[in-house]
């Protein structure tokens, strides 16, 4: 088990390295090769050649690309100094550089955004798993009834409708028309739990709707298949009450494959979060990313990509470990 | 009658298939670099010859390597060691092109008639496929050729355009047989061809295989776990245990005079469909204890020794050769240091809940 864990962590680190390499390559190397100048992006078109040269030296843009990448990695791990002669700026680890636009350090900027996105993602994930699984189980047990058909039609709608449609619709109905909820906004949980909740409920529902639908369909299909399994018949033949048969023996088998799907969906969830943040005007990582892309703010884009990659890799690591715990056949096989 | 006839026939005619020292070790790998940490020794050195026109039965329990042997004979698998010689030609390691004639002359029939037929193809196209792939001339057209084959295996030729799911299990097995016959093969390797079928259908298919053998002078290797079916259809029978042949003999010899303790146990375990003989059958039954050891790490010496009531020290140190024992004819070979004699009283049954 321990060697498995170590192997998985090594794999995760390698994956992250590859991700940094690729994003670094795309965002920094490509402009250099194609002739557009990152330094120009940094200070704007009107810069005089001297300060442009100074910026280049300070950011290390004159170095060969592998050296730049090496410095970037060092900055991540140990922090780095940007120096142009006596003009030295120190950037603490993990250093992601400075925003081209605001000249702020990228790391603290993004760290302050993480809670927003994380609140959104986790809240939505909890909602969708609960609703998706519950709907799926109910649908499977009441197969062919009105309830089943209604739930599955709803699920189909959830899968098909894009966030900017459902999100705008929800905004319009619940905030502007009915006025049931305040405008969506992020309040830190520790400051005001109730405000945190009411401010995020609508984005959660919007984001969760998309995924809950998939999970409901998946759960329903899994449950129907599981109910036909021999071990369910065994459970019944032991005289277990039906709720134990479904709730324990059935659900356990249904949830296991969902864990894998959940890990795979996490990337999509982050993508969904970008859209949702945009629709509800929440200042999270997604919002930051979109703004940065519009302004060609390379260090911020790189930072967001890296953080997203870390999330996905870590979640998948957790899912794999979790999977080997809940499915003994994987653990011992 | 059938046994004697084919014995002489086997002695006279040349061998169609000869396998020697045949080995199939499936590697077990671990880690990112696929380090080899061991091997499943599915088939671990067997010699067998199949003469033209005879039926050789291959019996054994699950995991003994009989199916792998069948796949090596048809070169679906490539052996890790040893030789497969078909009609005097060594085909052990020939590539796809060299296998082409073999694919025509050697056919396989599988256990599961449900999964070995593509559900999206009509019966007609399933049976016609080998004809077209091998570019066999069909003077009256492909359709006529396929319909002849359908008739041959007892199916309605008008069902040419139906799909496999429209047929019952027994009929599907007939389709599988028709497909195998399409190329007029010399050797058919049948892997548990009747074990998925109901008893009454089983007999139909066994009789069909019998008839086809007579009509086309076919040679069969019949792989099965059912000792009574194997007895019915085979001229010679080889018993396998953990990747090796432990006993081989002409059918009547083997069933009337089993030498290897495993063969004895296997035969005594078959339930007798006669309630009157229930008590005597149970009294004379040798109940083997424990499970078949893992083929990853088989016991030293004789592989059966861990479950054998006759095992002694030598069994752990020396692998007994497959050879004629106790004055048996050369055709009856046993791999055992202490073969069971004709009049020997075999160890009786043990209570069910002992350490079994």
């Amino acid at each position, binding site marked *: 088990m321990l060697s498995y864990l170590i192997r998985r962590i090594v794999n995760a680190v390698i994956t992250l390295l590859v991700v940094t390499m690729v994003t670094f390559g795309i965002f920094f190397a490509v402009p250099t090769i194609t002739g557009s100048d990152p330094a120009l992006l940094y200070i704007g078109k009107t810069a005089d050649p001297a300060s442009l040269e100074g910026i280049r030296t300070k950011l290390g843009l004159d170095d060969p690309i592998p050296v730049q990448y090496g410095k970037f990695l060092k900055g991540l791990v140990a922090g780095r100094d940007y120096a142009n002669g006596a003009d030295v700026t120190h950037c603490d680890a993990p250093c992601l550089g400075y925003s081209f636009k605001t000249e702020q350090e990228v790391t603290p900027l993004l760290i302050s955004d993480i809670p927003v996105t994380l609140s959104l993602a986790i809240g939505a994930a909890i909602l969708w798993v609960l609703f998706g699984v519950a709907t799926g189980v109910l649908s499977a047990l009441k197969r062919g009834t009105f309830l089943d058909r209604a739930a599955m039609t709803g699920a189909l709608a959830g899968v098909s409708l894009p966030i900017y449609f459902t999100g705008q619709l929800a905004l319009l109905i619940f905030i502007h028309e009915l006025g049931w909820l305040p405008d969506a906004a992020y309040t830190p949980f520790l400051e005001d739990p109730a405000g945190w909740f009411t401010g995020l409920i609508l984005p959660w529902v919007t984001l969760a709707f998309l995924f809950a639908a998939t999970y409901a369909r998946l759960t329903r299909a899994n449950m129907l298949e599981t109910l036909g399994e*021999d*071990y369910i*018949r*065994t*459970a*019944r*033949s*032991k*005289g*277990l*009450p*039906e709720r134990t048969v479904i709730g324990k*023996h059935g659900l*356990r*088998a249904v949830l296991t494959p969902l864990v894998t799907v959940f890990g795979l969906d996490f990337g999509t969830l982050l993508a969904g979060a970008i859209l949702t943040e945009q629709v509800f005007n929440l200042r999270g990582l997604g919002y930051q990313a979109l703004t940065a892309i519009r302004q060609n703010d390379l260090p911020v884009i790189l930072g967001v990509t890296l953080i997203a990659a870390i999330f996905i890799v870590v979640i998948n690591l957790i899912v794999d470990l979790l999977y080997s715990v*809940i*499915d*003994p*056949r994987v653990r*011992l*096989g | 009658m*059938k046994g004697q006839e084919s014995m002489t026939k086997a002695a006279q005619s040349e061998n169609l298939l000869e396998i020697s020292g045949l080995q199939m070790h499936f590697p077990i790998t671990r880690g990112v670099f696929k380090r080899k940490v061991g091997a499943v020794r599915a088939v671990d050195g067997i010699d067998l010859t199949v003469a033209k026109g005879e039926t050789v039965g291959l019996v054994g*329990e*699950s995991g003994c390597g009989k199916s792998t042997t069948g796949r090596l004979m048809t070169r679906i698998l490539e052996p890790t060691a040893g030789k497969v010689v078909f009609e005097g030609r060594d085909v052990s390691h020939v590539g796809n092109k060299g296998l082409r004639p073999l694919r025509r002359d050697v056919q396989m029939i599988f256990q599961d008639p449900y999964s070995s037929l593509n559900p999206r193809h009509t019966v007609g196209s399933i049976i016609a496929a080998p004809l077209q792939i091998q570019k066999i001339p069909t003077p009256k057209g492909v359709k006529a050729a396929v319909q002849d084959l359908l008739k041959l295996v007892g199916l309605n030729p008008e069902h040419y355009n139906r799909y496999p799911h429209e047929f*019952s*299990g027994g009929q599907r097995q007939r389709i599988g047989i028709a497909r195998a016959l399409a190329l007029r093969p010399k050797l058919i390797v049948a892997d548990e061809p009747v074990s998925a079928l*109901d*008893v*009454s*259908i*089983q*007999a139909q298919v*066994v*009789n069909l295989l*019998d008839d086809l053998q007579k009509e086309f002078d076919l040679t069969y290797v019949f792989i099965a*776990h059912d*000792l*009574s079916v194997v007895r*019915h259809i085979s001229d010679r029978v080889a018993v396998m245990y953990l990747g090796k042949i432990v006993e081989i003999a002409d059918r009547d010899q083997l*069933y009337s005079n089993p030498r290897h303790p495993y063969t004895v146990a296997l*035969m005594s*375990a*078959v*339930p*007798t*469909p006669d*309630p*009157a003989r229930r008590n005597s*059958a*149970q009294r004379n*039954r040798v*109940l*083997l204890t424990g*499970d*078949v050891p893992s083929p990853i790490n088989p016991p030293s010496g004789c592989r059966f020794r861990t479950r054998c009531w006759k095992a002694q020290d030598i069994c752990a140190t020396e692998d007994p050769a497959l050879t004629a024992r106790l004055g048996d004819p050369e055709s009856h070979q046993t791999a055992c240091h202490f073969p069971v004699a004709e009049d020997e009283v075999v160890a009786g049954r043990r*209570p*069910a*809940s002992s*350490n*079994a």
Partner: protein
Amino acid sequence: MSTDSLAGLTMPAGPAKRPFLEVKDLTVRFNTDDGVVKAVSGSSFAVERGKTLGIVGESGSGKSVTSLAVLGLHRTRSNATVAGEIWLDDKELVTASDEEVRKLRGGKMAMIFQDPLSAMHPYYTVGAQIVEAYRVHHKVSKKEARVRAIDMLARVGIPQPEKRFNEYGHQFSGGMRQRAMIAMALVNDPKLLIADEPTTALDVTVQAQILDLIRDLQEEFGSAVIMITHDLGVVAELADDVLVMYGGKVIERGPAADVFHEPQHPYTWGLLGSMPRLDRELRERLTPVKGSPPSLINLPSGCAFHPRCPYAGRNGDRSFTESPELRGGVHAVACHLPAEDRQKIYEQEVAPNL
């Protein structure tokens, strides 16, 4: 010794005591998109405690559906209708409430299945599943249940039961897995044990061990056993009485010795003629039954066996229009052929070829 176990059936309702398990006119239907599946039609039989009833038939003969009906396992299927009477120890089960039947299930009556790998939950340990079975029917602590489960594992011949208790089904060999299933079924001392093809998925040497175990345990517990199988050899080894089913109906019923030595129904002859036997001289050819088993949605008219029966034309068109009833005393048969004709055909045409 076994000839009187069906006596309760042959006698009209009277002062005779009801057999331990008595099934009367059991009919099971499934509504499907393709039509009504007549899985079991009017089947009747009985088993006493300490006796074994063998139910033989091919796939689709209704043998498994019958056993599931006894356990009330069709109740969870909304498309199933079960009619008739099932009396277990003087309690009628078809009309009993779901809760009443559930309490008997796994308690007074238990079942073991064909494929022990798929019949065990892959995510729970073998021990946990046995403990669960025990605790449904006994108000005991987990600790006590654990002691009981380990005891049962030892009883069915599983070495190192404490260690095996914590392992999963897939870590057991096929034979050990079936032993564990038997331990689970017997944990509540059931008075009726239904074994549905318990050895079909096993190798022949392991099958011998398991049959031996079931026989031993039956002696020890004195339960009634229903052994469902397609293998006539297995039935001959274990059963006191035999039921032959075809197309959802009982077509022959009687003491094992009678059914094997003087089979009455042409289908039973066909079954016996189809199987090669180690205990007989070699036959040049097997004598199979022609054709295939019928579809239960579209059963042949009259006698369901008539399309496959070599003697179907002998009574005018009765075989094609009229369904034969199960008639006779202890050894009963559902066939239109007159008894003396059957006797003659069997002796002259069938027996020499077996």
